[in-house]
């Protein structure tokens, strides 16, 4: 599985490199201001690390297209997560994204003597910018999004009480950048409300023995640009708690994002996911690479 994922990633990167060298013939692109496409969060949407933001992937403005590809690795105390995918945006209005996540059960997998050490899921995302602009105007940029998630390994989620191996989540996000907002630096904030019943983002299925209804969950991000190339920030993501076999903690991260140019961005973060599948103290490093066109 690892090999296949690696090959798929290679193919995606080749495709993106090809698109870059062809400079997206005849399609105007790339005119939005640096960093306004954000990074790519672990579910494939433009955002931070764990929260989808109201911004759209790539740098296409109102008559243009944009695209991005990402690879992220999260190394927690007892687990690790790999995620990769691609996203495209049209006229800074619609974003479509595809991502694959592979969650390595590590310690727990060995303790349980499992053959299958991985939980994988595919995620199809669609995001629609409803109104506003991140930088210009008085009001924030507002977007509504949908994520369709499908588990590829449902044996363990099923065994611990999850009800569904696929589900749709809906969210609405508002994001704003304040020029010279704080200490003469540009400051941004994003608030996202998500309607979900996903266990650990869906890697442990959807719904559970403690309830099958979706809940309104709060997610937020805030940060500051030290220069136009470097941002520091943090994120919070509330989680539902639908499986009695293990409590589920809310997620946090603190990140530094680097945007050397419009084609490359790197995010390094410290993530705290709390208790994950009975094992507490799941903290660790998050590294993400994004290419954009």
């Amino acid at each position, binding site marked *: 599985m690892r090999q296949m994922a690696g090959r798929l990633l290679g193919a995606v990167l080749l495709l993106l490199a090809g698109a870059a060298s062809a400079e997206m013939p005849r399609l105007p692109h790339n*005119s939005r201001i640096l960093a306004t496409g954000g990074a790519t969060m672990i579910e494939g949407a433009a955002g931070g690390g764990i929260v989808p933001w109201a911004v759209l992937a790539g740098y296409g*403005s*109102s008559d243009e297209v944009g695209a991005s590809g990402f690879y992220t690795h999260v190394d927690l105390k007892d687990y690790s997560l790999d995620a990769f995918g691609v996203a495209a945006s049209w006229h800074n209005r619609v974003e479509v994204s595809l991502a694959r996540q592979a969650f390595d059960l590590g310690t727990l997998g060995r303790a349980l003597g499992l053959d299958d050490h991985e939980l994988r899921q595919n995620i199809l995302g669609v995001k629609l910018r409803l109104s506003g602009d991140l930088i*210009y105007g008085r009001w924030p940029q507002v977007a509504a999004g949908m994520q369709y998630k499908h588990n590829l390994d449902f044996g363990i989620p099923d065994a611990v009480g999850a009800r569904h191996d696929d589900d749709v989540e809906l969210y609405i996000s508002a994001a704003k950048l304040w*020029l*010279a907002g*704080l200490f003469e630096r540009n400051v941004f904030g994003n608030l996202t409300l998500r309607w979900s019943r996903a266990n650990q983002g869906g890697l442990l299925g959807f719904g559970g023995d403690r309830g099958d209804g979706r809940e309104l969950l709060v997610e937020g991000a*805030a940060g500051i640009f030290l220069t136009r190339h470097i941002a520091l920030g*943090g994120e*919070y993501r509330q989680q539902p708690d639908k499986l009695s076999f293990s409590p589920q903690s809310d997620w946090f991260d603190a990140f530094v994002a680097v945007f050397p140019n419009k084609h490359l961005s790197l995010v390094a973060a410290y993530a705290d996911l709390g208790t994950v599948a009975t094992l507490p103290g799941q903290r660790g490093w998050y590294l993400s690479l994004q290419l954009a066109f």
Partner: protein
Amino acid sequence: MRSPTTHRVAGLLLLMCVAVGMDARAADRLYDDLGGADGVAALVDQFLGNLADDARINHFFAETNLERFRSKLIEHLCALAGGPCTYSGDSMHQVHAGLGIGEAAFNAVVEDLIEAMERRDIGTGTQNRLLALLAPMHGDIVERR
């Protein structure tokens, strides 16, 4: 369990609130930080050079009286930055009406200005303060479709 979570959320919210509260402040000393009359003139010259070289947007200036554009732009930036000038030109809406300027063209001009400020070694904070004063013009310049 609640306490550390609550604290961290409170921290994030506080940061966001402070950010909202600190609106782009008055242009105090911005004119000086831009280098006064000489600094503003040098910045405008660099900016105009960038615009002329930018194939994305230089066609918009094909019939522009560059001498007048230059003097009005210097005057405008000087006035905005709190310098001893009064802008005597037409409103941003009048100047750009009917040109069909879209988001892409507007962003290209912003990038040319940022590039000019970088060339002039203007610091990040000063750049941000000037951009904060210019950003509200977006609504008068970009044509909605």
